[in-house]
């Protein structure tokens, strides 16, 4: 390894905006910031808490009494954060998923989605019942299913139905690799691969999907929120069955209906997440069951930025940190509220961005990887020596940046924040350079060991346990010890415990493919489904969406204000 020069430091603007004075200085003033009054958001919380207390007669938000027995936060500067790559500065509180509707919607849009094949059902209808299937009948079915899926009746008399305005985010579209078939179905129902993806990616996706016809189904946000992810395939299958009955004039009780149900509920359904073992007690379509390769395909930044695998990976880190750290581990699993502070380090203030783009410069300079022209030809052979070289240089550079800019060390004031960021930069760089996700993981674990020995500190007990034993499992493929990166997931042994890893691991799996210029990482079906511009959350720009949420400009689905007294 050898340090290379990189004049552009992406974090400088953020640090200058956040911290007054010399951002490279080692000393500053404290205890004079007027504690919580320095933060507009905290002041808003205090005012809101008082109002609520007066209304309900039970005390609530009261930091001047409850925080450290009367000493509120804000003895140092309560920093704002720039959401990386957006130029938008927000308060940390605005990045808690409870305060950010865009974050909620990202998860809602995943949880309420299933992909269901139509070919099994069409076979049943054609071969068993002798029905004719044509583009016209498919379009008619799609009309009916888009009426029924949100919760409207199609067969029976005198049925209750859902109000369209509270389920307006629910719909069904279809996609196929067969351009002729796609062109013959009503446009409003078709995810047009040619229009949504760059030509090379579209070609690869169409070849993978072939002549099969798939439904991308999004049940109402309000339903999956009230029930759970396991509801999605059930709700969807019920409406699919009723729609087939209507569209093809079937008998509601005939035995063939069971075939359609079986196809929609089991044989032809792709869940977004596997169900988890009993000790974690979650059904399908809950975050712990999303394998990293599939998550890589939910995030669409490689479609939008095909010539910047680094940007594509950083967007995925942000989305993964939010979903796996803030929502999955932070709330589902631990029940805490503090995980946001750890997780946001990976997608704020352009720090991980700078470290990773340094890695891009390094692999271009030393290994001649033309990372801005992603391809399979110039990938480096993932030998141990090369992974060690890349992982070491990227980690040392990051550590030196923290040292040279004490305000950056102050920004990432917890060791686990720094560990995630340093190791992510090392892992993403090795992954993009080699096109091999396990090489990326291996680089991550080397980074952790270097960090621990260089600074004699790492994360915290639970955080770095997996990192201190991670080298050993990074290239193991024995059951219960290792796996290809794309098939690992949040419930993978050792990964199921703590914050600041899973979003980054997921991005390391994805980045191996974005570095190769692949159209998808693991599932072409999921990649196409989440390219849909009708989804409330834009999966090609997670960070921009989070910024919109923080600025209170994002309109989430599943609103029920229509059904309540106006305020």
């Amino acid at each position: 390894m050898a340090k290379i020069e990189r004049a552009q430091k992406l974090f400088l603007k953020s640090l200058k905006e956040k911290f007054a004075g010399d951002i490279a200085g080692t000393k500053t003033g404290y205890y004079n910031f007027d504690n919580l009054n320095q933060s507009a958001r905290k002041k808003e919380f205090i005012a809101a808490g008082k109002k609520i207390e007066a209304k309900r007669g039970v005390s609530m938000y009261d930091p001047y009494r409850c925080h450290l027995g009367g000493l509120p936060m804000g003895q140092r500067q309560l920093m704002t954060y720039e959401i990386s790559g957006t130029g938008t500065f927000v308060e940390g509180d605005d990045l808690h998923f409870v305060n950010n509707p865009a974050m909620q919607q990202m998860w809602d849009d995943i949880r309420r989605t299933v992909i269901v094949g139509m070919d099994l059902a069409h076979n049943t209808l054609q071969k068993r019942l002798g029905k004719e299937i044509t583009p016209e009948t498919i379009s008619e079915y799609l009309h009916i299913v888009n009426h029924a899926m949100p919760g409207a009746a199609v067969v029976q008399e005198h049925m209750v139905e859902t109000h369209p305005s509270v389920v307006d985010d629910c719909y069904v579209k279809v996609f196929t690799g067969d351009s002729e078939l796609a062109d013959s179905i009503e446009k409003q129902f078709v995810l047009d691969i040619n229009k949504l993806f760059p030509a090379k990616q579209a070609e690869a996706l169409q070849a993978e999907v072939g002549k099969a016809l798939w439904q991308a189904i999004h049940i109402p946000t309000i339903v999956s929120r009230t029930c759970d992810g396991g509801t999605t395939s059930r709700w969807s299958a019920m409406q699919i069955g009723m729609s087939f009955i209507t569209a093809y004039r079937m008998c509601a009780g005939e035995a063939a209906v069971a075939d359609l149900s079986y196809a929609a509920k089991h044989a032809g359904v792709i869940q977004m997440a596997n169900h988890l073992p009993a000790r974690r007690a979650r059904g399908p379509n809950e975050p712990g069951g999303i394998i990293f390769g599939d998550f890589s395909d939910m995030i669409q930044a490689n479609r939008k930025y095909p010539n910047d695998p680094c940007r594509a990976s950083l967007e995925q880190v942000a989305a993964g940190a939010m979903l796996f750290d803030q929502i999955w581990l932070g709330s589902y699993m631990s029940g805490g509220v503090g995980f946001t502070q750890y997780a946001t380090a990976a997608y704020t203030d352009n720090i991980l961005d700078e470290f990773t783009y340094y890695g891009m410069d390094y692999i271009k300079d030393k290994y001649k990887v033309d990372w801005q022209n992603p391809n399979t030809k110039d990938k480096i052979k993932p030998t141990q020596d090369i992974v060690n070289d890349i992982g070491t240089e990227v980690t040392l550079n990051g550590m030196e940046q923290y040292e040279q800019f004490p305000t950056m060390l102050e920004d990432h004031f917890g060791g686990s924040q720094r560990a995630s960021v340093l190791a992510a930069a090392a892992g993403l760089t090795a992954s993009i350079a080699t096109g091999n996700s396990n090489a990326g993981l291996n680089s991550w674990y080397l980074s952790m060991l270097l960090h621990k020995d260089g600074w004699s500190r790492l994360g915290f007990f639970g955080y770095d346990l997996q990192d201190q034993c991670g080298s050993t499992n990074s290239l193991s493929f024995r059951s219960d010890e290792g796996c290809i990166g794309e098939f690992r997931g949040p419930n993978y042994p050792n990964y199921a415990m703590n914050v600041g890893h899973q979003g980054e691991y997921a991005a390391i799996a994805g980045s191996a493919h974005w570095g190769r210029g692949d159209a998808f990482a693991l599932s072409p079906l999921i990649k196409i489904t989440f390219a849909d511009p009708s989804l409330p959350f834009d999966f090609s720009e997670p960070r921009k969406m989070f910024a919109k949420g923080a600025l209170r400009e994002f309109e989430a689905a599943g609103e029920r204000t229509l059904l309540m007294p106006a305020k």
Partner: protein
Amino acid sequence: MAYTPQYGPGTSVVSENRRKQMNPKLAFEKMRDVNDSDIVLLLGHRAPGSAYPTAHPPLAEQGEPDCPIRKIVAPTGGAAAGDRVRYIQLVDSMQNAPCHPYQRTYVECYRYRGIDPGTLSGRQIVECRERDLEKISEDLINTNLFDPARTSLRGATVHGHSLRLAEDGMMFDMLQRCVLDGGTVKYVKNQIGEPLDKKVDVGKMMDDAWLKANTTIFHSLVGTPFRDDAEYIEYVQRIHSLRTKYGFMPVE
């Protein structure tokens, strides 16, 4: 052949300092003299002079089972007396504090018995029987493992290890448990943040030159760059490579 501990690799002053601190054959350098009573005040577990609260009767009185391990391992003083298990937790500034979390844990594991250290990024806790703890705490506070400004006792609300120093050279502590007062650092609160009836003077802060020469952290701005210790980096890479290869194909 008997194993001879090497206490870690490296050719830099940081590596050498780490080895010196870990090696139990080398005595710590005595730097200050905070007395027993003041250490008890700082810890905040019992009042100075009061009896040690116990978790169980003295081992000699409670009828130990016939156990071969108990015959091999002599209990520490605190264990023999039945003391409670209590803690000291120290926060180490990344700006050249003399000791750092993992280093502190290694030091304690090489030098003390009957301890339970926990290692985080800014702080390190060690738990043990109370009278044993007070003895260990004397070492941790009165020797070259400690700097009054950049090492600090903090039971909770530990935030500060990676922040810039305050203008007076002190590490940030939102509870301001200790303050620079008349040229020396004085604790006005115990480690958990309860106000003390009397200030406990832990002496003058060490100067930058001493800290740079005695620290155990690599730091490219205020100390020794990690990159400059090639032997150390090669060692970490070697450990990582061996672990990786064994995980892939677990054969000798």
